[in-house]
């Protein structure tokens, strides 16, 4: 996507300053908590969706890998964490680690095929991998519950003290903490030389190769990291809702997170979060309305964003802010 100057600026800040965005995110999360105390399930799903969108942003927005099958990593992480909780241990943090590893393995494995090709073929492969995984999950009923879904996931209390309660309070703060921590890690990652290399590959692959960068190896690592984070998001979902369905792996899920990311603005971490928030809130209220009209609105929005509003919501906001600061000067 032709970005409007999205190269993140590496710069040094004081410790407080460098934690400002994370603090802001934490604050936003707390606001969400107080805004919908009876709807914490929904609020938690926004947080998990935001994490998932962040992982796609890394892969697609920063590294330029087009994928229509990102839900595969999410779903694999969810199933792995769920199965782990049922068969081994209900310890939440271990489950997160299991989800991350599962997502990373699937990504690294499929990355070998995906990254060797480009254009339609590579998109096809991402689709096919997700489809195949969904088929396997569906057939392996004894392990995954098949199309009945994986239920009966019981979690041990968080840190040994906080039970996963009915209202979803523990779940919410758990998800918020994981989100803020992941955001902190990702922010540093995209500003590091590693992250800048990703952007470079996205902008001009041949030049990067000419500069001596091992493009495919680099992309595979990014893809694996993205897969790990998506796996963590899936694990969170499995642990908090305590149920995993085949739809978590499905194409609709992949398409949905892509739409959310694009609406918010690819190539910007805040874009992933903003897009998720706006999309899910609007969907929550519009869902009561005729679903075909909802599809129409989303389709039209996509068209508008692609044609006129490249950079999504955050891109548009930045443009407004820039023109404002210019006029102020």
């Amino acid at each position: 996507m032709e970005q409007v100057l999205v190269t993140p600026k590496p710069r040094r800040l004081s410790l407080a300053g460098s934690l400002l965005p994370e603090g802001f995110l934490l604050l936003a999360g707390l606001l969400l908590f107080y805004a919908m105390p009876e709807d914490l399930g929904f609020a938690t799903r926004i947080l998990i969706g935001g994490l998932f969108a962040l992982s796609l942003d890394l892969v697609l927005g920063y590294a330029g890998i087009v994928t229509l099958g990102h839900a595969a990593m999410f779903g694999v992480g969810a199933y792995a964490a769920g199965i782990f909780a049922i068969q081994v241990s209900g310890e939440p943090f271990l489950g997160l680690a299991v989800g991350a590893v599962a997502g990373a393995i699937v990504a690294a494995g499929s990355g070998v095929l995906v990254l060797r090709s480009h254009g339609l073929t590579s998109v096809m492969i991402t689709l096919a991998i997700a489809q195949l995984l969904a088929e396997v999950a569906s057939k392996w009923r004894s392990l995954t519950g098949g199309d009945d879904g994986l239920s009966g996931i019981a979690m041990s209390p968080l840190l040994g003290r906080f039970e996963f309660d009915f209202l979803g309070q523990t779940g919410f703060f758990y998800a918020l903490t994981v989100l803020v921590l992941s955001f902190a890690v990702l922010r540093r990652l995209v500003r590091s030389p590693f992250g800048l290399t990703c952007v470079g590959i996205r902008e001009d692959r041949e030049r990067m190769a000419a500069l001596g960068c091992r493009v495919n190896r680099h992309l595979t690592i990014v893809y694996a990291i993205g897969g790990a984070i998506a796996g963590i998001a899936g694990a969170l979902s499995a642990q908090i809702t305590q149920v995993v369905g085949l739809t978590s792996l499905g194409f609709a899920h992949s398409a949905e997170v892509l739409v959310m990311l694009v609406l918010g603005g690819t190539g910007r971490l805040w874009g992933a979060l903003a897009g998720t928030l706006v999309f899910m809130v609007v969907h929550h209220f519009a869902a009561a309305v005729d679903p075909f009209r909802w599809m129409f609105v989303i389709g039209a929005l996509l068209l508008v964003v692609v044609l006129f509003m490249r950079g999504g919501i955050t891109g548009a906001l930045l443009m407004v802010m820039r023109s404002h600061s210019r006029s102020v000067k």
Partner: protein
Amino acid sequence: MGLIASIIIDSVAYGMVLFVISIGLSITLGLMGFVNLAHGVFAMAGGYGAAWLMRTYGWSYELAALAAVALVALLAWPLQRLLYSRLQDRSDLDQVLFTIGLVFVGIAGMGVMFGNAITPLPLPEYLQGSVDLSFRVIPTQRIAAVVVGVLVLVALMWLLERTRFGIETRAAVEDADAARALGIRTARVYVMGFSLGAGLAALGGVIGAELLPLEPYYPLKYLVVLLAVVAVGGVGSPLGLFASALLLGTVETAAKYLVPSMSSIFFFATMLAVLAWRPAGLFGRAH
């Protein structure tokens, strides 16, 4: 022996339907490098259009089918000129997103107009029923699909090899700048190619309505299958697509006879295997 003959017959019939539906996508992709995920919308529009004409005006199957195909091809012209052309030089991602947006709009449109349930496309008398081949029967409609498929392939090959349009198209695919330098109006070639692709999709939607029933979610449901056939065939090569459709059709059909519950897995496994071996598809050129 009867088993092998059955497998061959069913594979060809299935493969031909896949071919007719996806040939349009291969052409637009090969010609303009445009990742048009909304291809299924044109196919669906053809089927729905024909059904609507038959239901509302009482037209015959043949007339309604022809009219629907022509209509879709005609409507594709301004669509390409006004919308698609603007994204011609944009990245793959932009094109994917744009066409997904079109898919959603298309689904919503058809859903509102025709409702959720399957819309049947009634076949004329002579296409109903089956033909008796002593050791088995074959639905007449399948034979028609095979005939149409072969005709389409022959017509396309002739078009590409023997007509001016075909030569201009091949030139534009080979090197658009050089073609323009030679005075070929690539914009016109693109829009005509796109229109042709859309019309073929509509034809596929009509012919394939028995196999892929008409419902609003059609473009999303069959997207993966269509893309698989095109990717394996190698973009832009009608012959490659023909081979791919037959290959994938045969693998899936044979599996249905021999290991039924694995037939879907075999389809995708074959696709992945071909793409791993030849990432540009069977007959494609590495870009």
